[in-house]
């Protein structure tokens, strides 16, 4: 199964998979872990991609997990469903007994991800144990598992944000419109511009204003920040990325700012 969020990294992994199996169709389904707090542009893009590839889509819904009482939602103005995705993902893996899950994580994104293997072993609880990983030599990957365990495979582990954009340009890969400069109502929170949406509203002392922005990563609307940019084409984005002095997660992910090891903790529980 291949995880597809509609973001640029998963769009690249999807393209690689399509090319690897061509002229056969994808021999596995595509899964979207849906927090219910999506950019409408991203959902529209996801559905269009799946249809054009004649692929099978599985949606693992966080809303459903909340409704069924499997998880409890965070409260407060900083509430996010980011962490809740883990349960939905693991349930979906267990339900269809997937042996292997392809993801678009990159080592350069975040310091805990930098230590992740290309073939990352998960035990029967979906847990990642960073101190007990299989050595990975040459291109001899070890996918062997026992029943109930699975492997997360990250084919673009060694790609950087710049590699992604250059590949998007070379391959003319289509992406959701939110990656490109557009007009949007935003407010400032923790040094980031957050999009106003049905899921996230400014508090009384946060001022709403319209600005020309784009998103550098695309995730849950409640924790993905925008920034002011006029880069409207892939070429302009490449120029912008080559000039930037801030990493993409530093610029746009509220979820990694909570603690130095926030990502490591989520990953150990089975997060992407």
């Amino acid at each position, binding site marked *: 199964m291949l995880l597809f969020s509609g973001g640029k990294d998963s769009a690249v992994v999807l393209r690689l998979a399509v090319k690897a199996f061509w002229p056969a169709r994808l021999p596995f389904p595509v899964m979207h872990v849906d927090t219910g707090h999506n950019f409408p542009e991203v959902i529209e893009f996801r559905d269009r991609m799946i249809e054009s590839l004649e692929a099978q889509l599985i949606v693992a819904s966080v809303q459903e997990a909340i409704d069924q009482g499997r998880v409890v939602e965070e409260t407060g103005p900083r509430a996010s469903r980011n962490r809740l995705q883990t349960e939905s993902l693991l349930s979906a893996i267990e339900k269809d007994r997937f042996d292997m899950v392809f993801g678009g994580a990159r080592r350069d994104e975040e*310091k805990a991800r930098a230590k992740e293997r290309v073939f990352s072993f998960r035990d029967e609880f979906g847990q990642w144990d960073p101190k007990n990983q299989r*050595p990975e*030599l*040459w*291109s001899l990957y070890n996918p062997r598992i026992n029943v109930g365990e699975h492997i997360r495979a990250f084919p673009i582990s060694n790609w950087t944000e710049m590699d992604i954009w250059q590949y998007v340009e070379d391959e003319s890969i289509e992406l959701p419109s939110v990656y490109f400069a557009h007009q949007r109502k935003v407010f400032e929170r923790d040094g980031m511009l957050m999009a106003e949406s049905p899921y996230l509203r400014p508090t009384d002392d946060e001022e709403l204003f319209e600005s020309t922005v784009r998103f550098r990563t695309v995730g849950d609307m409640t924790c993905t920040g925008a920034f002011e940019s006029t880069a409207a084409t892939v070429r302009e984005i490449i120029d912008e990325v080559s000039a*930037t002095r*801030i990493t993409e997660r530093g610029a746009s992910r509220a979820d990694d700012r909570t603690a130095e090891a926030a990502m490591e903790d989520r990953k150990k529980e089975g997060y992407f």
Partner: protein
Amino acid sequence: MELVRIATTGSVDDGKSTLIGRLLFDAKQIFQDQLDAVEDASRRRGTDYVDLALLTDGLRAEREQGITIDVAYRYFATPKRKFVLADTPGHIQYTRNMVTGSSTANIALILVDARNGMLEQTRRHSFLASLLGVPHLVLCVNKMDLVDWSEERYDELADEFREFARRLDIYDLRFVPVSALKGDNIVEPSANMPWYHGPTVLELLEEIHIGSDENLIDVRFPVQYVIRPHRHDFSDYRGYAGKVSGGLMKPGDEVVVLPSGFSSTIKNISTHDGDLDEAAPPMSVVLTLENDIDVSRGDMICRPHNQPHASQDIDAMVAWMSEGPPLRPGAKYAIKHTTKWGRAMVNELQYRLDVNSLHRDDAATELSLNEIGRIRLRATTPFFFDEYRRNRETGSFILVEEGTNNTVGAGMITGQTA
């Protein structure tokens, strides 16, 4: 753009972190928020300098203990090349990590402190780079500022290293006198060492020719996957997907498939973006053949007059990576070589190699974690392999412990048992 893989190894004292930090810093590859985080963390730990090692130490335990446990990967690019730098700790208990980091490297960066000269670990790191077949080795003679930028001292060290390297299998050896701390000869040429006319470290990394690191002579195509599209527009299509592990392949070339021995001719080299006139390492392609013969995953496609060894008996150097049971004669493991799995028994442990002195211990009865030795394996089925020196892809394998499924051994084939 060309991608270059670098393996670097060393301990805190030899200035390795400073060198990497300097390389990334001067090549403007550290982001502001990363630098802020490192400055923050350094302050909290009460160090009075910015500890650039904190950039690569990703896990909580690593930061708490101030050590690198695992291989840390850093990515940087210049207008000429892209680099993946695998940074591993240098102590002997991390031999496993060094072996891993070196397995895919084009260039090994090794540091010596100009004051101390060659230490035991310099020899160990150089030996491991040579064992893993890293084609280019760059010895950085560091802390030149502390020996008054002395050309004489540098020459002395270079001679000593050359003498030692004669016992190793090193294809391309380079030397650079540097001061990582002051930045001399890292990115910018040093004004303090006008006697040195060679390239800086970054210039070397940008210029070392890696194009011929791949084997372009022996055609080797391990079949990874058989593609049957089941689409009306490709109804009779049968393609063999894989990565070219050696040689140049062209449509019209006569080929033979192992183990069946059936021969055919390459009809097409196809990709999603169209057919190709030629395929070479490290391209991933799909081959179609003129004849409808039986080919499956794990089979090897090669030329009739240039075939790999086909044998159940394999001689190899093996690096043991398991924290669990040691390798002992008689033990059975799963083995993965190219795209093929099988089972193998250790028939014989011929010797254990001391990675510091290169002394061979013929009396050894087992290999524990981080130990390296020469073994003879007997596999349940023939494998199709070359000597590791000739081809890193068809000459390497891993051993996997059945039951736990852990990767426990890394093997470099020296030949087939006579």
